[in-house]
């Protein structure tokens, strides 16, 4: 489950998924990074992307990750500045701003482990079929 950490004016959203794993899914199963919804369940409502650089961003239609946490877990994270609010309760303000997006991110994160297993199984199958001539 994604979580947000507030420090001064900075808000860091940390995903439960590693940046490397998002990159892998983007390469092999890009559609798995799209959350579908709408009336018929066929309309894209949220997407996770991976950028080569920058601090990333999260908004109504998706989250873009470019960095990972500096610990051993290497989870994907987004750092954003939150300067517009003068509300005393900063947690409420942040929840109002990005709450809906984080909920959608959580839904998508739940599907990623299964997708990674599928990718690993397919890759293992492909590796088995490759031989190196002596």
């Amino acid at each position: 489950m994604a979580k947000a950490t507030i420090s001064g004016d900075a808000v860091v959203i940390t995903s439960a998924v590693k940046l490397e794993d998002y990159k892998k899914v983007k390469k092999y199963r890009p559609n798995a990074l799209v959350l579908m919804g709408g009336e018929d369940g066929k309309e894209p409502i949220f997407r996770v992307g991976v950028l080569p650089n920058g601090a990333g961003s999260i908004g109504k239609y998706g989250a873009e990750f470019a960095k990972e946490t500096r610990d051993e877990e290497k989870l994907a994270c987004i750092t954003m500045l939150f300067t517009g609010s003068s509300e005393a309760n900063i947690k409420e303000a942040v929840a109002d701003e990005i709450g809906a997006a984080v909920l959608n991110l959580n839904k998508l994160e739940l599907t990623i482990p299964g997708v990674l297993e599928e990718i690993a199984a397919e890759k293992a199958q492909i590796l088995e079929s490759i031989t190196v001539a002596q």
Partner: protein
Amino acid sequence: MIKVTVGNNVKRETVIVDSATTLRQVLEDANIDYTRGTMHLDGSSLNPGDLDKTFSQFGITEKCFLLNVVKADNA
């Protein structure tokens, strides 16, 4: 992420793309023929070279319409 409504006179679809995606990539993924007619981004005509620019280069941050409009000649 940007919600893009992409299409032409007869079909439209909605996709969500990252801000570093070019207009051309979105059109090609959606199988929209952009060799005829006029390309419009949020109602404004695009110029040669614009298709290889990214949405962020156009200042698009949340949503937009990317449409190819073919006007038939009057008989």
